[in-house]
């Protein structure tokens, strides 16, 4: 019996290994490329004035995006206030009250589906219920559409994190006569604290870089946001409008805004990751 030569096998093995390593490198190169571009263009646009003044008209240099920074922060915060409690309690329902019940199975399924619905569809929906009836765009509508995006993410992580808490903890609390709601709030939440916080931070990170849901709801505005009851300036829609404009100073400002958004989102993501790792 003749032995099959082993070099073709070894060669194909080496080729595949090289290709796999190159693929990983490919991903890293693009990440570095994008971050480098944002850093280079963005850093040169940043200044104290950029952070504290209103936008300037095209062709006139020196304006800032203070209104958009405030608008984005206000809408994200409001979205958290609305979306996080609802998501949290929906997650509590799924983990604590809805084990093996058919309604909970349906809701669990819908939460997963809802996380995959494109954000532009959520914007479209909020437009039809909050903008069209009143006849004008508003920051409130923007906050609601962001809240709708936060809700399923928080619900999902809450359920996952509460399910991870050992059942014996739950049972020992109940055995001591602690009511179910107190055991959930004082024992389960405490045990799952880091995980819950990670979920919320990740949801906020995801939402604060969103543009599509704000296009039809908050729109944009070059003025100070006195109330959220009208078009509200925000960083991401500003990037879209400025980048598509032919004016160099606006494009420059778009890069500055890109830098702020990227830095904010990446910082949130990295903090939440570190938190999740620390727990393990």
């Amino acid at each position, binding site marked *: 019996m003749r032995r099959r030569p082993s070099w073709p096998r070894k060669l194909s*093995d080496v080729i*595949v*290994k090289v290709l796999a390593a190159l*693929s*990983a490198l490919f*991903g*890293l190169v*693009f*990440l570095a*490329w*994008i971050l480098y571009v*944002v850093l280079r263009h963005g850093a040169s646009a940043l200044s104290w004035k950029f952070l504290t003044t209103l936008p300037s008209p095209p062709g006139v240099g020196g304006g800032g995006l203070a209104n958009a920074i405030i608008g984005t922060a206000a809408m994200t915060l409001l979205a958290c206030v609305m979306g996080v409690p*609802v998501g949290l*309690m*929906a997650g*509590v*329902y*799924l983990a604590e*009250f*809805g084990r093996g019940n058919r*309604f909970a199975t*349906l*809701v669990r*399924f819908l939460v*997963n*589906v*809802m996380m*995959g*619905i*494109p*954000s*532009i*569809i*959520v914007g*479209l*929906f909020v437009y*039809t219920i909050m903008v069209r009836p009143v006849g004008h765009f508003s920051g409130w509508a923007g906050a609601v559409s962001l809240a*709708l995006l936060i809700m*399923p993410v928080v619900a999902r992580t809450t359920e996952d994190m509460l399910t991870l808490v050992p059942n014996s903890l739950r049972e020992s609390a109940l055995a001591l006569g602690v*009511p*179910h*709601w107190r055991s*959930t709030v004082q024992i389960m939440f405490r045990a799952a604290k880091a995980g819950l916080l990670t979920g919320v931070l990740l949801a906020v*990170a995801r939402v604060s*870089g*969103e*543009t*599509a849901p704000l*296009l*039809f709801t908050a729109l944009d505005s070059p003025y100070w946001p006195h109330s959220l009851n009208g078009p509200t300036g925000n960083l*991401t829609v500003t*990037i*879209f409008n400025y*980048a598509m404009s032919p004016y160099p100073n606006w494009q420059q400002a*778009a890069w500055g805004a890109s830098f702020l*958004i990227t830095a904010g*989102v*990446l910082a949130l*993501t990295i903090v939440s*990751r570190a938190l999740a790792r620390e727990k393990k």
Partner: protein
Amino acid sequence: MMRRRSHTRAQALAETTFHGTALTCAVLVLVSMTAIFVELVRNSRLSLAKFGWGFLTSAAWNPVTSDFGAASSIFGTLVSTAIALLIAVPLSLAIALFLVEMAHPRIARPVGSAIELLAAIPSIIYGMWGLFVLAPYMADHVQPLLQKFFGKLPLFAGPPMGIGMLSAGLVLALMVLPFITAVVRDIFALVPSVMKEAGYGMGATTWEVTRKVTLRHGMRGVLGGVFLGLGRAIGETMAVTFVIGNDHRIAASLFASGNTISSTLANEFTEASQPLYLSALVELGLILFVITFLIQIAAQLWLKHISHRLGTDK
């Protein structure tokens, strides 16, 4: 004694309130999903009534004569998603292979985290990069090269402008890459090490074990990851809007500009003044909603089916 009874009553009230609030919030998820569907249908009824099923196949898009059809948007959505998956799926498989089977943990961990970071970059940043950096690069270097070698194919015909279907697909590929990689990586790591070790014990190389043991064992899971990537790519808005060129036409060339459902919405929605125009745009949104809904359902069912088979279900 009295005090004690009122105490328990308060406790019972608190318990009911807590349970009720949780239930209400769960119902809210159901309500919002239903409301999205109902509102989209309600607001597209003008267009539904006027164009009927023909909306799906008509390539017309003329706000002046009020003639609308979804064909070019659907075509662009499908083509850009297909390009994205053709690039991202093999890359994700290779990256997962590198992370799970080849790299030392000290390298695999930071590289894995970096790939995950690609998912954290907001869509609009991909758009900025795509429009101002990638598109000029494609126009100057990549597209002329493709034309030099495959110029006779209609796929690569036309002037190399940088923006267009190919660039949109490439940006989308980068955006879904981390999602598919994460799923594939988990699937690869789930393959029992005894099975792999049995392969290595027979003298098989890493590639042989991957191909004949790991991939065969995890194939269904990989498909689930592809579904997730598909769902992401198909509804992606801002990045695509920046680089696809936004043109209502169906062209054979990948260099030509086109549009997708979401890019059409992003571009034209705030300009739509007549009720029928607006209604047609909402109907586009409805189509996208139904498509992603179906993909999500398929993906969920499929992943559930797999995790049962692999015995990892909770």
